[in-house]
């Protein structure tokens, strides 16, 4: 990887405790995100991609979720070792997240302007703390055990003072919202789906995060709006110098915007490659199956080849490769041992016994 690493996840295992026992949602996942990189995590529902994102930002509800093992390293901090009040200092201002359905993540009773103002205030507070601590040695002081905690309540209504208003307008202009002066005074229900998602992006970016996690940000949107939002994310990435981790079920969307694609199956990372390498030389049978499932062209030209069978129930402990039961190339070893992730060529990793020794 050419760019320095911003986030390193190593051997992360997360399970959900249910009445019928523990369900492994994420198993031994290791990945790295560089600075100013656009990485997409692709997989079907239940493959653990959202759980992974929630673990990175620290919003997993525990219980039922439990991080069994692993490490999440952000810059120089070990995020999983921090307590909740220290963890909060990273949330929003360092790592931000936008969700699938903007209407449920925006507060329905506050105006759009006030909600963006809140994000800006959080950022201002952090900057002020850094200033008062004096300069560059600040990181340890701010994130150290004795740094001042955030005020328990942020005053939201009327927080849009004149100085702040221009910052809100700027945030809305950044995400290409027409007539930001009017949008500022609207409630979320008065906006269209695409505008709501833009407001969410504006809020997230107002905190100037170094890493933006986007969990299915365009799934609830129409195709023309989806195209606008994806294009916006891609351009903003170079404008504000942030890294993006896009969680999506849509391989086509990922291929359009991402630099690198990580494919997950039933909690496992099965393939991790540069987008061009993944599409020119998909290696894991699941990735290949997924690619031949995406309809393109007419049924007369190209027949779809669905992957047979279903994803196995994850409460069952599986010894071998989780994909073996659906794989046409499965060998005996696939049912006995879990394949390790091996690098088959520079920057292309795959977890399959068909490759490597």
């Amino acid at each position, binding site marked *: 990887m050419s760019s320095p690493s911003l986030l390193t996840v190593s051997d992360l295992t997360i399970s959900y405790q249910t009445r019928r026992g523990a369900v492994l949602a994420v198993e031994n996942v290791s990945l790295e995100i560089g600075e100013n990189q656009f990485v997409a995590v692709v997989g079907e529902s239940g493959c653990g991609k959202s759980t992974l994102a929630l673990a990175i930002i620290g919003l997993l509800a525990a219980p039922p979720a439990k991080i069994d093992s692993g490490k999440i390293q952000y810059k120089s901090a070990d995020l999983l070792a921090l307590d909740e009040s220290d963890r909060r200092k990273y949330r929003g201002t360092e790592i931000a997240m936008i969700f699938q359905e903007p209407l449920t993540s925006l507060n329905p009773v506050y105006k759009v302007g006030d909600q963006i103002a809140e994000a800006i205030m959080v950022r201002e507070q952090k900057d002020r703390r850094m200033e008062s601590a004096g300069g560059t040695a600040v990181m340890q002081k701010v994130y150290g055990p004795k740094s001042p905690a955030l005020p328990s309540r942020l005053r939201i209504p009327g927080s849009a003072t004149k100085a702040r208003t221009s910052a809100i307008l700027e945030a809305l202009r950044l995400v290409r919202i027409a007539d930001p002066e009017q949008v500022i005074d609207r409630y979320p229900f008065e906006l269209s789906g695409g505008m709501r998602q833009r407001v969410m992006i504006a809020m997230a970016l107002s905190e100037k995060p170094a890493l933006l996690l986007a969990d299915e940000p365009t799934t609830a949107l129409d195709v023309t709006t989806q195209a606008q939002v994806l*294009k916006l994310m891609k351009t903003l990435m170079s404008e504000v110098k942030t890294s993006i981790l896009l969680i999506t079920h849509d391989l086509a969307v990922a291929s359009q915007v991402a630099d690198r694609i990580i494919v997950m199956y039933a909690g496992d990372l099965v393939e991790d490659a540069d987008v*061009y390498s993944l599409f020119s030389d998909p290696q894991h049978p699941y990735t290949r199956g*997924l690619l031949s499932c995406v309809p393109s062209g007419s049924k007369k030209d190209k027949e779809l080849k669905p992957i047979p069978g279903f994803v196995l129930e994850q409460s069952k402990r599986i010894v071998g490769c989780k994909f073996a039961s659906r794989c046409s190339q499965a060998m005996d070893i696939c049912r006995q041992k879990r394949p390790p992730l091996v690098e088959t060529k520079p920057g292309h990793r795959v977890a399959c016994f068909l490759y490597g020794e």
Partner: protein
Amino acid sequence: MVSEMEDKKSDLILETRNVNKLYPIRRGFNPFARNQPKYVQALNDVSIEVPRGKTVAVVGESGCGKTTLARAVTLLSPPSSGGVIFDGQNLTEGRVNTKALYRKMQMVFQDPDSSLDPRFKVRRLVSEPCSRLLDGGKGAIEERVMQSLEIVGLSEYVDRLPGHLSGGQKQRVAIARAIAIRPELVLLDEPTSALDASVQAQILNLLIELQRDYHLTYLMITHNIAVAEYLSDQLIVMYAGSVVEHGPTASVISKPRHPYTIALISSAPIPNPWKRNLLNIEIRGEVPSAINPPSGCKFHPRCPYAEKICGEQSPGMVEISPGHSVSCHFAEKTA
């Protein structure tokens, strides 16, 4: 010549003629309110033709009226005006024997979670419409149920509740329920949008198989251009309640002529990192409000080719190549 025309007409299993659907907007309780009743025009003079044995796909974005069209055709919410001719019978005139109608016309809905009763087992879910619509004893119906479950590959699941099935299996139950009647026309309202990619491919192939084996006609509602392209013979593009372009699928996809169709097709992400079409598109604005739609052509506020006339007159349908028609004042510019 006349007989040829007749032939062509009788070949249509379904036809709509200038169908309009208006939904009144409920006003608040104000006895002194003087304002005129307002309506949402969900369908505006929609005329479509569905040839027997073919697949016709209706594509468009949310709120464009595609589901309303399906509901109007099935009389689940009958059209406000206009005609729906199914199998030679006008469904908007006089009394319609709905029992007879639904023996020939069935629907598969988008979300199997809301179209399957969670307390019914698969057997009952599939057999209920059969026992209501068809004559014949219990044994005959049971046989049919088992047969259609076998076709969709779920014969081992008759005694399960929907809660114990995966999304794809639930959608198979919904399809089994529709085909158990042996209908002629199946309306598919977003049949795969709730499904994962690998399961979607299974369902699409199942639909193709069923069509081939039972000579079904499909009217499919979808927002997914790739799915429409894969499955359909004819494509209808809707925008804000009106049909803006229709024709043979291959022709519409390869040579779209309405500016909206062009935008829609180029915004559909294609799984190819070397062709990043999404990052080159230029489309502004969003779908207009259905309560106060723009005057003239409804697409003109977003259209790169719009001129004065577009805001004044709504364009008529013009046939630009055999069977391929477009509703645009400047269709020649986009060629």
